[in-house]
């Protein structure tokens, strides 16, 4: 998995999401998640930086937290928080809005 990590922290999402399901072995992912093996440990390290929320898949091992995951709103609790006072982030956000002059 480490080899698949690209320079800008994007990882091969297809293999991360589907795991070994696409390679013929249809071992249930659920069981795999509950087995706390080393390969999973690596999986979560790789995910840092790119799609940050993916690393929280590890938390599924904990039944209570996993149950909390059963709501789409969970994203609010695990989101990466950004400093919207930062000039870079503010400019990036402003670029996503229609220009004020166009609106007028």
């Amino acid at each position, binding site marked *: 998995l480490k080899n698949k990590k690209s320079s800008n922290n994007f990882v091969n999402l*297809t293999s991360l999401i*589907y795991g070994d399901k696409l390679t013929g072995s249809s071992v249930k992912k659920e069981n795999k998640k509950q087995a706390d093996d080393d390969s999973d440990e690596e999986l979560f390290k790789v995910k840092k930086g790119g799609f940050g929320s993916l690393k929280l898949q590890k938390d599924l091992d904990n039944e209570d937290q996993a149950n909390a995951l059963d709501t789409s709103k969970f994203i609010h609790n695990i989101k990466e928080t950004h400093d919207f006072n930062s000039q870079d982030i503010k400019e990036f956000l402003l670029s996503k809005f229609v220009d004020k002059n166009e609106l007028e």
Partner: protein
Amino acid sequence: MLKYQGSTHFRQRVICSTLSGRPIRITNIRDQDEKPGLRDYEASFLRLIDKITNGTKIDINVTGTTLTFVPGIIIGGKNISHECGTTRGISYFVEALICLGPFAKVPLDVTLNGITNNDIDLTIDTIRTTTLPVIRKFGLEEGLNIKIIKRGAPPNGGGSVNFKCPIVPSLKAIQLVDEGKIRRIRGIAYATRVSPQFPNRVLDKAKGVLLEFTPDVYISSDHYRGNESGLSPGYGLTLVAETTTGCCLSAECMGGSGEKNETPEELGERAAISLMEEIYNGGCIDSHNQSLALLFMVLCPEDISKIRLGKITPYTIEYIRNLFDFFGVTFKIEPDQDSKTVVFTCLGIGFKNMARTTF
């Protein structure tokens, strides 16, 4: 029969099982917990599924730690009423009905009683303002409606919602890759059994944050009193950012439950920042509705569907895995490094509403 372990993603599995017609067995449901087995809201969810289907077999063992679910036919129907309880919000149940309703024998008309707005599930306002527009894109247009009869805040609820869903012979494939630019922001600041000043304070603060980005911000205040206000006090804010291509991104925050020591101004700011996070993450569909859009893409006719999503949530990831298990569909997943979004493409399975009486 598909076999799973644990209580995770219970709803997803029951929904996929009902749509695909594949039975499931879930074992070890909280078997290590002090209170083992299914929770009250999960049992309530199964009762609701039983009400809208015909021929469903649900077997739960004595301790509630093992469930065998053999799906029947979705029949839908009018004048269905369901008590959702006070553990989870009404949206927990409505989200499932949205997935199943279009494929029923007759249109669905359900009245659900319980909590309309809480901080665990999506609020009914977000479902109405962002989820319904998403599914309209798949061809469900006329007759799809959510009406809030009474608002109900936690802990006692007392809210009531009417949900109507039309039936369709099949869905329509979509191509939703152009996010466009945010052209306006709309919102609702609501309050039940508290002073009308509360929603005004919330919306003033949120508006202050959002006006830095666009001048077109309009947030309405919705104050419920008397019989319409449910049994507990509460207030909150739902925000929706609409883009030039018709996409909607939403965020919401709820206060007044007593657990958080938060002023209305802080809540307003938190909601505005949550919306900024959604906009920052990008995509044509917000994080709350990713899984629903992916499910409907799978159920589309045998045609290519394509959508652009922002940061994918753990819930969505598990949904994608379940879609593979139940329907055998694999998505082509292409990260777009410039916009930090992900494009999902799949070939629909050509799912048809076989329960429908006339074609």
